[in-house]
């Protein structure tokens, strides 16, 4: 595998660069979002929740798009899209990627509703924000598992 990496064709470099950049930025943005959602859920801080929603929409979502689009690009270059039974590490990557979008959307909706209530009725962010923090934490773990799968390539 490492031998393959050293003789990787040059035309794979751009999609691979974007894929690694997207993955690392996504993990970083998820860590920041969680670090903001935890105090928002614990102390009911609307300011932290607002920042968490900005982090989700301005960092997590764009990073996910770069990761997912470049994943298809590199899979196409490497010929994995033509394989009937792809190895486990590809499957783990798809699960983390596709389930990731679902978790991002649900967390975003929970955060948005909590922020709207905080603005309208002056309610402090509560249970919904705590659920969003757990979902973002789960997505962070999923992405770390995908990082392990991409580097160790099980199956």
């Amino acid at each position, binding site marked *: 595998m490492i031998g393959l990496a*050293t003789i990787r064709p040059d035309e794979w470099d751009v999609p691979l660069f974007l894929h690694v950049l997207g993955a690392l*930025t996504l993990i*970083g943005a998820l*860590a920041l979002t969680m670090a903001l959602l935890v*105090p928002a859920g614990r102390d009911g801080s609307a300011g932290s929740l607002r*920042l968490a929603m900005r982090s989700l929409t301005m960092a997590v979502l764009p990073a996910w798009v770069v990761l997912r689009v470049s994943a298809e690009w590199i899979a196409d270059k490497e010929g994995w899209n033509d394989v009937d039974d792809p190895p486990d590490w590809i499957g783990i990557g798809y699960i983390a990627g596709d389930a990731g979008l679902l978790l991002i959307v649900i967390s975003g909706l929970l955060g948005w509703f909590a922020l709207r209530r905080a603005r309208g009725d002056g309610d402090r962010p509560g249970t919904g924000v705590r659920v969003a923090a757990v979902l973002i934490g789960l997505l962070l773990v999923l992405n770390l598992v995908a*990082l392990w799968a991409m580097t160790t390539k099980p199956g």
Partner: protein
Amino acid sequence: MTDTLLFLHLLAAASLFAAIVAFTALVLGARLEVGTVRTFLTLWHIGLVGVFIFGIALAFDIDGYDIFDGWVLIAIALWLAAGWSGDKVPAVYRESGGGAAIPADVARIHWIHVAVVLLLLADMIGKPWA
């Protein structure tokens, strides 16, 4: 062994990126708690040391890679530049007690730092003069 080293190398890089995302938020005007900034600064230090140690270990571990390869020497130079410029934003933010905006000259250093890290990543992928 090589796979584990590569995973740890990328895990350290992820830690570095988490800090960069947080410091970028500060430069863009976000007001984070000082404790949160301290946590990301710790991630920055862990990531910086981790990418170096596991990167050098990989260069020794993989046949065909050498510590004196052009791309490894470029990576070390960029790593030194990243290490110098990486903690300027959290240092200024903590000194101000978390309330003040990041000064323009420190913000400029931060964007140079981001460019250096992107070049480092491009060097890792492209491996010029390998």
